């Protein structure tokens, strides 16, 4: 019962966060959005009228034509509800409603590889690539991290413990994107092992696209793993050190169970709840970091889409991408809460 209440509060909070994020985004880009939308309407109306030959010939002079065009633009703006300012409650509610129902409209400049300018199409195309890269990276990182951390934590003060801790502190201070630049320099420019740009040159409908994409994924994957696993190992190590002090470990040791067996079978089970929580959180965290990493490697995912949208100020794409990134972030926070509540029996009784 308590668990259910805990999850309900968390769920409500996260929903509030999602709404706050949307509201803030709309508030921040709203005024710019308004100008762009109005400009779009006037261009559309003007071209509709000038293309209509019979209507064009019915005007006596340009003054009358201009008057007509202006009136039609005003009518259209009123019909679309653009006459009230962007901060009017109606408009904000309308935009929120549209976004919640995943109707992000059309992109102003960008288009998907398939040529669609619908924001949801673009995002649906890019999202799997980001998920592919960062999920793979997180899985590799966590595996190396858990293994190293367990080893280091079970032998505190040993060489492997010291190296792991030192590596964690040092690697955490490097900006991932800078290491990315160096990796491109070493492996793409000097050794010619991997391509420098992570976007495959083959069109996406080619059968060779998937292998090419995987080959291009190698360099970013190696970089993210290299920077990430130290922190993971350190985290697992710290959890492990606490568990190794527990009575049941001492008992198992005295009855003569091998150290390795204790570490990888009993002790790891006990550190599972926090590790899984951190795993869920770091997955979502990596999505935020994707913006810079993907810009460095030119990986054709959400992060680069976001960066491109910002550089050309493609507002519908910015809003859509922010929504999706935030939603992902919040879902993983929620999942980690859920897992934590499920795995840690103490939460249920609190």
């Amino acid at each position: 019962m308590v668990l259910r209440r805990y999850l309900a509060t968390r769920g409500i909070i996260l929903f509030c966060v999602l709404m706050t994020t949307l509201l803030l985004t709309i508030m921040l880009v709203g005024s710019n959005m308004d100008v762009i939308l109005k400009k779009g309407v006037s261009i559309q109306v003007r071209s509709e009228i000038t293309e209509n030959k019979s209507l064009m010939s019915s005007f006596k002079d340009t003054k009358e034509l201009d008057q007509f065009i202006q009136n039609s633009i005003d009518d259209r703006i009123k019909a679309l509800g653009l006459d009230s300012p962007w901060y009017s409650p109606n408009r904000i509610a309308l935009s929120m409603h549209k976004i919640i129902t995943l109707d992000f409209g059309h992109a102003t400049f960008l288009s998907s590889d398939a040529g669609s300018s619908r924001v949801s199409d673009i995002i649906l195309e890019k999202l799997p690539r980001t998920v592919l890269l960062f999920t793979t990276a997180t899985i590799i990182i966590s595996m190396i991290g858990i293994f190293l951390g367990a080893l280091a934590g079970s032998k505190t003060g040993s060489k492997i413990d010291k190296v792991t801790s030192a590596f964690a502190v040092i690697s955490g201070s490097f900006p991932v994107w800078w290491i990315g630049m160096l990796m491109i320099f070493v492996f793409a420019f000097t050794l010619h092992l991997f391509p420098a740009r992570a976007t495959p040159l083959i069109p996406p409908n080619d059968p060779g696209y998937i292998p090419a994409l995987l080959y291009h994924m190698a360099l970013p994957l190696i970089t993210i793993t290299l920077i990430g696993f130290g922190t993971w190992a350190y985290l697992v190590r710290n959890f492990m050190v606490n568990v190794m002090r527990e009575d049941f470990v001492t008992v198992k040791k005295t009855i003569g169970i091998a150290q390795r067996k204790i570490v990888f079978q009993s002790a790891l089970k006990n550190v599972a709840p926090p590790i899984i929580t951190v795993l869920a959180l770091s997955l979502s965290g990596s999505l935020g970091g994707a913006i810079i990493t993907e810009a460095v490697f030119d990986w054709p995912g959400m992060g680069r889409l976001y960066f491109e949208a910002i550089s050309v100020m493609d507002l519908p794409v910015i809003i859509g991408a922010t929504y999706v990134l935030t939603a992902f972030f919040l879902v993983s926070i929620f999942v980690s809460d859920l897992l934590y509540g499920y795995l840690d029996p103490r939460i249920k009784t609190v």
Partner: protein
Amino acid sequence: MGLFDDLSTILKSKVGMTGIGILLCLVLVSAFTIVFIPLDTYKEWNNPSRWTLFPKSALPSWVNVFLAKKIPEHRLLENIHTTIQTGDNARKIIQSFETDYAFDYFPSDFIYQYTAKYQGTPVLEFDVTRPDGITLHLLSYSLPDLKSRTVFSDKIFSTNESIRKNTLLASNIFAFSVDSMPVEEVIFSKIDTHEVLKGKYTFVVKTSTTDVQSAIHDSKLIIGGKVFGLIGTDEQRRDLAIGLLWGTPLALFIGITVSVASVASGLVYGVFAGYKGGKTDESMMRFNDIIYALPALPFLIILAVTVSNSIFLMIGFLMIFGWVGIAKVSRSMALQIKNRQFVEASKTMGQKSSKIIFKHIIPQIMPYALASIAISVPAAITTEAGLSFLGLGDPSFPTWGQILHDASTHGAVTRGLWWWVIPPGIMITITGLAFVFVGNSLDTSSRIKR
């Protein structure tokens, strides 16, 4: 208690000492930069005309240490001595520039830049004396006619057609054909083979005029090379060493301001919530949860694009996302401390809650706060660098991220301009590490005491 103890524990740990050492160096570098590097180098960082005399994408000059064949260094020569001969109706200004040329490749070009104040039409003569004693006449040139005494500046390039013709006049002293060679490859060549003649070259500029009050204010001779300075130069000819130097105080300023401000506000927020408890605590923590769950980077990007990318506003934006974690931890600490006897005692004595919070609770959490200040500095620096790297930083400040952004837009990585990419990243990392070292040793010391 407090600061003194913390300092002594840092000094006892090796890691803490290293951190403090690096920090001291960074502070010294900042002080040096602010005092000794001319301010205009940073104000005009983005003004290309300020950097025209520098070489384009030049390697750092220390690479010559590792090379068998030395790459020519780019040199900006100030004139060593000026002799002025003044007659009744004439004045002759003789400037000479000396350079010891000991490189294995020819210079890429040379430029004479001058600013003169005169009237009439002075005649400028440009000669060079080589290490083997041969003097080559390069140019005779009359400056534009000025009716009244005014200031005139100009540059004479080695690609000047008259210099070329004059050098070709001396082609008979060379044992090989010099017809199709650039001037600098003739002037700096041995006479028997086409190789660099090493030694001391003296360039002499004689200006004769009928105006006895004329003067040359400023003149420089640039011998173009491919290595320059400690770090080299970038595609826009800027001296990267100066950029990195200015980046140091900027990074320290950004990092320290953001972390101090966010830790301080988080601390007060958390302690207040924890001390008050009940409904206040509940609602304050829910607000905290909301900010905590906002995705920081997308928001920072939107803020930078829509509001402003000024560095001071950016510091404010970074603070918005910085205080949340601290608030959570200090709340839980305050919850523990508020039930201790001395707090209970001062409560029963009727002290105001603000006094209890600031006098009794916050000092207890201070060691933790100091550690979190140090630990959160690197995050602030790397986030700012990351935003600058995306091109969303304040372009008027040469931060390290900004330099890396320029490097990536000019394709420095794929063109192998490593000296443009590696040093800024090393600076970011070293600065981050220094604070992490200090923070870690502070953290362990505060944990031991708890």
